[in-house]
């Protein structure tokens, strides 16, 4: 399918989604830049502009006028400058991303994680993630949104979520120190706890974990035999080969739902994996609350053609958090809209490739 041969109904749905996105953009900008409801950071920022965002941002494309969101703005305080006045007095969470060295990026949240995961819940099949079944989440907790989000997902579906923590910052430190043996032992420590819970609680039928921990769990146990029906997997990069390996060799028929999400965006949904398309991992953002686009790394305002590779650019549009045109450290191919998600998606997200500058010295 090319963009010039879209089915008429898909074209109409794309048009409708675009209109919805434009309207939502106006609403979100109005909220964040209104002196009564706005976010202190953006109200201050607006003073540096010689144009009025509330008047001049009339659609999603107009967000280019802000230039690229700088991730440094999210490092350090005061974190309250990100809390919209319209939400004064509400309980506020702060979630962190990265942070193995230096000051982590922080994003405030009130209800966004619940809204995102409830929307995501609607995409999960009930036979694989039965309502009322309990969950086990084996992965990052601490300052990360993932813990509360997965727990809320379980609760939203009538389940109770058991938790095993993994501290990714410690794992990164162990790798940097060359302590790979210690890293293995730490991973085993996490897996041992997960196995104990799986064996002790018969109603755990749904699992969230990261790709590496999924591999490690499946080295020890058949998830199917122990009662798991669906695996929701995310947290780090996944390759098509990993998805094929998970589907064909690790899971023995257990449903596999790979996801792409982060603290700044929310949670994308994936197109079903099939051998026919090489297990390509295609994600669609939760439009209009966030958009993912693929742009030319040299000209970040130019969106590349369908199928072309570029840098991932994220725009988050919620009343809790406004983040226009943020350049991720990822690259991907731009994917066509399709029936279920009539807006752009991304294919095979992976770390943004950097040219190696090291010189191998010596002959061996």
């Amino acid at each position, binding site marked *: 399918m090319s963009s010039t041969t879209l089915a008429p109904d898909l074209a109409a749905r794309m048009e409708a989604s675009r209109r919805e996105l434009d309207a939502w953009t106006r609403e979100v900008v109005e909220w964040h830049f209104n002196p009564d409801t706005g976010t202190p950071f953006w109200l201050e920022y607006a003073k540096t502009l010689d144009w009025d965002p509330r008047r001049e941002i009339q659609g999603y494309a107009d967000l280019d006028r802000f230039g690229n969101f700088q991730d440094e703005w999210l490092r350090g305080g005061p974190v309250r400058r990100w809390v919209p006045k319209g939400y004064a007095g509400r309980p506020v969470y702060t979630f962190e991303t990265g942070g193995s060295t230096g000051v982590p990026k922080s994003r405030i949240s009130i209800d966004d994680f619940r809204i995102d995961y409830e929307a995501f819940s609607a995409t999960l099949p009930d036979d694989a993630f039965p309502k009322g079944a309990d969950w086990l989440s084996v992965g990052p907790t601490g300052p990360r949104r993932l813990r509360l989000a997965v727990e809320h997902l379980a609760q939203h579906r009538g389940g109770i979520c058991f938790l095993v923590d993994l501290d990714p910052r410690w794992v990164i430190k162990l790798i940097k120190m060359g302590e790979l043996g210690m890293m293995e032992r730490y991973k085993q420590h996490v897996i041992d706890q997960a196995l104990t819970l799986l064996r002790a609680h018969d109603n755990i039928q749904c699992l969230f974990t990261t790709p590496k921990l999924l*591999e490690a769990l499946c*080295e020890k146990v058949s998830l199917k035999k122990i009662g798991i029906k669906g695996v929701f997997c995310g947290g780090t990069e996944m390759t098509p*080969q*990993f998805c094929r390996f998970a589907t064909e060799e690790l899971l023995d028929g257990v449903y596999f739902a790979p996801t792409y999400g982060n603290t700044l965006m929310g949670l994308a949904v994936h197109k079903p994996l099939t051998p026919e398309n090489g297990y390509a991992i295609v994600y669609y953002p939760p439009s209009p609350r966030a958009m993912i686009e693929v742009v030319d790394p040299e000209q970040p305002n130019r969106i590349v053609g369908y199928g072309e590779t570029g840098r991932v650019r994220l725009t988050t549009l919620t009343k809790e958090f406004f983040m226009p045109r943020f350049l991720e450290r990822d690259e991907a191919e731009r994917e066509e809209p399709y029936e279920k998600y009539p807006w752009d998606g991304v294919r095979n997200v992976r770390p943004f490739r950097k040219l190696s500058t090291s*010189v191998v010295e010596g*002959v*061996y």
Partner: protein
Amino acid sequence: MIHIPVLRRGVPYRSVEIARTVHHRTREPFVEISQANSGLIRRDLLDQETAARNLAQFKVADLIAICRRAAPLFLEGTLPLGGQPQTPQQYVEQLSATTGMPHVMVRRNMQKIHGVMAEMESVLTGLTRNLDLGILDTGHGSVEGHAVSYFPRGRSLGVVLPNNSPGVHSLWIPAFALKTPLILKPGSAEPWTPYRIVAALVEAGAPPEAFSLYPADHAGAGEILRNTGRGMLFGDVSATRAWGGDPRIELHGPGYSKVVLGEDCADDWEKFLDVMVESIVANGGRSCVNASGVWTPRHGDAIAAALAERLARIQPKPADDETAAIAPFADPSVARRISAMIDGGLDEPGASDLSAPLRGERLVEFQGCSYLLPTVVRCASPDHGMANREFLFPFVSVVEAPQAAMPEVLGPTLVVTALSADRAFQAKLLASPLVGRLNFGPIPTIRISWDQPHEGNLFDHLYARRAFQSAYAAD
């Protein structure tokens, strides 16, 4: 396009993750190589027992016979490669296409590999110090009236392989004859040789499950080394440093091999010029056993000038030219960066590129490929930053140092060719832990006898001896 699959215990597997290696000249994709994800490698390695048990059922004598039958197949046979037949000539051309190595050098390396397979019995005799190999079949036996027992130290040997020269593959082949299944990670530009060796061995009767080949990234290589009982790693300084403290892993890093003249031979240096040149240039300077240093108590200037004059005759030639002596760089940016690194080193006072006036530019283009022309650097002091360096082309530093300071001043050196009949000096070299292989007399550093250990003895790496007594009568 040719596709090379993963081999999982001998069974081909086509990955959805494909690496495309380019032809060094055209820069067009030349071969597709299936990549194994690290989880897949890990999962396969959960069961190393089956292959080890199957291989243990063969007698060492049977495995030696398989190697002997495989030798001519490797050299002359048409063997399967990714479901297609591969003739010896195709192998030569394919290897040359992705690495740049001239055909004549590929053929010489084929001969080397053929020799190891054909002479496996003698190789094992050397490695085991003439042990009755039947003892490895029964697990115990008697040597000169003493009970001995050997046991394998791991269920398989994991090997992370390099791209630089196919000859290095000779180092792991004896593991098969020593009943050890192989878990190989081929180099990204040189999958050809390990696949062809495995194909020849299987064609000759080896059980396919004894061989796994996992083209993979660094993470995959790490999984192999972490999860096999014994390992072997070919890599640069930083790669080998990461595994330096792990006794399970035999490291093959840069060699820093040298030709060393003693006081008694230094005045006769001209007689040894051919040995020096061959040590530096053979195999295009791409081996860890190539000399990257000539160390002498005196006449450094004259030796360097003479070497520069001899090496300046070497020019790039087409890949199929039988007199080709140097290889282009498959990645031109690597050649540029190495040349810049050498120029940077020469900025430090006390060293000069004696080849420059004779040769012109070091980095040249020939038929669309980047070459580094042979380079002789004269260093005034052993402490100079360029005195002990090694690069992937004919490069040598000529350094003056008093004999009394050797071998300590040489630093760790894989091969020393010592041109000296001085018994006291020889004794010092023999006693030194810094010297890996030692040649006395005019033997080029590059000349390898495969029944000798190389950076560790493979037999000692794979087997350990235990104390053993038996009250039962022998079978």
